[in-house]
């Protein structure tokens, strides 16, 4: 995850940083019977998985794509998904085998995603902004995001909640969300379950069951609904009552800081 922008270092010196709250929010969405997989720049979801394992989901499995360490120890967490430290793990699988199993479709139940652009239906784009052949911004490329079509639940995370990132429709569809909405989603007949949640530095979002568009669920402490609406480049579904994101418990924070002992989520 990006360490720039300063938002990872929100909160007081001892209270939870924004990045820490985001890790807790992702962890809350992981279950004991999940097998999760993640790739590029995935320190945040790796920490979330380790936190879930050490709290409510001890039997969760997670694969840190790149090195493909299985249940890496972290402590400390590292910023690169290809760092050799991720082989301090229960076991490891060759990347080519992980790619093979991603195709099987019934092995991995959770896939973490993100993007330069994330749209109202949860589609992700890491390739380009504007026309692909002469883009105004060329991103790195789509990596494994097309596999989102085949996975149980997609959890999206980003450190950038602004109108350039949150757009009505992605310029390049790399990682499929609910495509163009209910009709196209039904027509595609995909085996995956689609995006389940989006966690940002401002809030946590879900998807409206009818429209399959993003819907505000909770705002993080100190953030207003208006701020989220202004930071989102499409018409966001906002329910009448938007609760505050529940704060992490002291226990969660203590465990989180033992996992992320280098303070990546605190901007370290």
């Amino acid at each position, binding site marked *: 995850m990006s360490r720039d922008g300063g938002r990872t270092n929100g909160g007081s010196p001892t209270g939870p940083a924004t990045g820490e709250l985001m890790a807790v929010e992702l962890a809350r969405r992981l279950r004991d019977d999940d097998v999760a997989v993640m790739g590029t720049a995935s320190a945040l979801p790796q920490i979330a998985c380790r936190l879930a394992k050490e709290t409510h989901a001890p039997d969760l499995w997670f694969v840190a794509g790149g*090195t493909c360490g299985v249940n890496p120890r972290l402590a400390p967490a590292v910023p690169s998904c290809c760092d050799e430290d991720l082989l301090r793990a229960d076991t490891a699988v060759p990347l080519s085998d992980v790619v093979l199993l991603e195709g099987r479709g019934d092995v991995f139940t959770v896939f973490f995603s993100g993007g330069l652009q994330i749209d109202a239906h949860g589609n992700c784009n890491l390739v380009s902004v504007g026309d692909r052949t002469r883009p105004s911004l060329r991103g790195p490329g*789509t990596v494994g995001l097309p596999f989102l079509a085949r996975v149980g639940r997609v959890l999206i995370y980003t450190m950038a909640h602004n109108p350039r990132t949150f757009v009505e429709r992605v310029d390049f569809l790399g990682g499929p969300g609910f495509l163009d909405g209910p009709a196209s989603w039904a027509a595609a007949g995909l085996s995956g379950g689609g995006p389940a949640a989006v966690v940002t530095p401002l809030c946590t979002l879900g998807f409206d069951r009818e429209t399959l568009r993003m819907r505000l669920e909770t705002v993080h402490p100190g953030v207003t609904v208006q701020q989220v609406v202004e930071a989102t480049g499409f018409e966001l579904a906002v329910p009448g009552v938007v609760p505050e994101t529940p704060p992490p418990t002291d226990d969660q924070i203590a465990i989180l800081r033992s996992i992320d002992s280098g303070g990546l989520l605190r901007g370290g």
Partner: protein
Amino acid sequence: MNKVLSLHDAVERHVPDGVGLLAVGGMHLHNNPMALVREVVRQRRRIRRLLTSPCGAFNADLLIAGGLVEEIATSYVGFEHLGLAPAFRRSVEDGSLRVLECDEAYITHGLNAGAGGLPFAPLPAGLEVSDVWRANPESFRLVEDPFTGAQVLAGAPLRPDVALVHAAEADAAGNAVLAGAHFVDRVMAMAARTVVLQVERVVPTEAISRHPVGTTIPGFLVHAVVEVPGGCHPTASHGHYRVDEDHLRRYLAMAGGAEGPRAYVEQYVRGSSEADYLEAQRALAAAEAHR
């Protein structure tokens, strides 16, 4: 059979100018065969098409920075948490570099198809909803599954003319041991017509044959072995050294500025022998350690 060559000779003999498909191993900022990459830049070998692992990094960006790459087949070129790849980004945005858009599944299975002589790689259902294959009609087709009649996505086999791959060690015959993560380097070596290995050290064959199942690339696939201790710098070499983020940040600052990457390429690559470059980096690291 002794396949050990100097860095200069390995590139001169095995990487022809105008090479059709050159593959570079390593993933993100780890196990990039940078000594070989720098030597390709010094010898100005033009590359008609470059292929990366699912995540190319400095290996690809430096070849692009050297003005050598006509087209790139990739699913990612970037510096992960450090930022975007400046030469790649600039060249695509100004239209001078054509991208054959790939994804991780195609690169991996396409290399397997290349390694196995498979006519193409059928890809899992659902991948056709992404825009990747529409953006790259040369590499992807929708075909009829002969068993079910369903339309499925197929990728052309990937057969690199030359693969540049890093391994921790190898014997003189090219039997190589990859330390740490394998990424897709084994598959890349199996698919390529010519494999040039960069290693931290050349070891006696007995050191390999003591634990033969630990051999991850067999020598019969390898054409040249180049011993360059520290040669992955500034990327990491698993089992040996970590990423030099300070150096990479210097590259990103230099290459990301208005002047582009030319000054970096002149100072650190074309204006410096590999031995001088690595010696200077070692001296810097030692000075840093003493501070």
